[in-house]
Every structure is written in C-alpha cells, then in structure tokens.
C-alpha cells in the first residue's frame, strides 16, 4: 500500500510541477520547475511517518550529492543542446549516465572520507 501511495503522490506532484513549467515563460525560468524537489516532496512525508525524522535527515544529507550531480547533468545537456543542437531525447537520456557516475563517484569518495 505504501508504494501505491508513493506512486500516486509522486505522479501527481511531478505532474503539477511540469504543468507549472508549461505555463510560464521564458523557457529558462520554466526550466526551474524541471529541478523542483517534486520527488522529495512526494516521498519524504510518507518516509517520516513510516521511518522517522532521523531517516528523513539522512536522506536529505545524501540528496545534496544528487542535487550537485543534477546541476552538472543540466549544464552538460544545456551545452550540448544549445551549441551542437543535439537530439534532446538522446542527450537528456544518455546524460542520466553522467548523473549516475557523478552521484556514485561523490558518494563513494564521501563514504571513504566518512562524511556520509
């Protein structure tokens, strides 16, 4: 049941932010909503009720790494799309590999340094 609730709330919140992005102009401002904390907002309240606030705090800590990776991912895709007019689906899809690489690179380094 928890995962059904997560699915529905996640879908609704992500869609709402996407609609906000559709409505506003210019495109660079609309893009802010592509990096809105939609998944976090949708799931952290459920996480808090099921596993407690210490768990939420730990998720918030590692979310910082995910957000840094998201920043680099967006800069790389923006550069490829604007300079080389690359295919958006291919660029943003393949770019997820960059996101994963950065996330697990920083996470592993942080784990070794006992930060996380």
């Amino acid at each position, binding site marked *: 049941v928890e995962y059904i609730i*997560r699915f529905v709330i*996640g*879908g*609704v919140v*992500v*869609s709402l932010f*996407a609609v906000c992005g*559709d*409505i506003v*102009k*210019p*495109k*660079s*401002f*609309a*893009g*802010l909503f*592509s*990096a*809105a*904390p939609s*998944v*976090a907002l*949708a*799931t*952290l*309240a459920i*996480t*808090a009720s099921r596993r407690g*606030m*210490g*768990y*939420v*705090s*730990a*998720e*918030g*800590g*590692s*979310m*910082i*790494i*995910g*957000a840094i*990776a*998201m*920043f680099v991912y*967006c800069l790389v*895709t*923006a*550069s490829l*799309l*604007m300079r080389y007019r690359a295919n*958006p*689906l291919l660029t*943003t899809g393949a*770019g997820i590999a960059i996101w994963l690489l950065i996330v*697990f690179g920083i*996470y592993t380094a942080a784990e070794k340094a006992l930060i*996380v």
Partner: protein
Amino acid sequence: MKVKGDISDLKKTTPAEYAIRFLFGGLVAVTAGLIAHRYGPQVGGLFLAFPAIFPASATLIDKHERKKEEDGGCDGAGNGARAAGADAVGAAIGSIGLVGFAIVVMITANRFPILECLSLAFAVWAVVSGFVWCLRQKL
C-alpha cells in the same frame, strides 16, 4: 526578461504526454523508496534528486517548438534543441536551489515536524532558484 504565464499553453500537451509525466513521476517516487528500503537512506536519498521528468520535458519542448516552426514553413529541429537547452539552463539553476532544499531537510528534520521542515526547505528552493535566475538575467 519578464516572467509571464499563459494557461492556453497547456492545450499543446496531449493527454498521453500528461500520462507519461505522471507515470515517470510515480515510478521514480517508488524506485527511490525501494532503493532506500534495500540499501538504506544514504543511497535512497541520492535518488530524491534524480532528473525524473527532465528528459520527458526536454523532448516535449523540442516537439512543440518543431511543430510551431513547421507550421510556419520552417525546419524547427535547431530551435527545438535550443529551447530544450534554455530549459536545461533553468534546470541547472533550479538544481542550485535543490542543494539548498536538501541542506535544510538534513538540518531541520530532527528539529521540526515534517510539514514545517518541508515547507521551509521548499521556500529555500524557491528563493534560491529565483534569486540565481534573476542574477543571471542581470549579468
């Protein structure tokens, strides 16, 4: 550049495209939960900043721009990519706000109830993202 809103733009998106966004959002929320359950909150938290909707949004922007250009008798491929690129620049700025959101959650989760913690974190995301976007416009 002035920020404007136009609800009529919603008509450009088809019900199937709305359904894809809903599906992606739901799947990422479930996947993040499953990963946290299996590998712990440190690994699960990484996926709270997964670029869930970005590829779908960029593809939609490209499609809409191409259609607009083609309706005007031009090849819209280049403009579609450029518009998707502008969206990506905005998403990069939003990611800076997302770092602020995550820091606030990490610090306040043990001090405040979840609603206050998330409200504060969301306000920080909005203020930081808006501020950096305005700053970039002025530079």
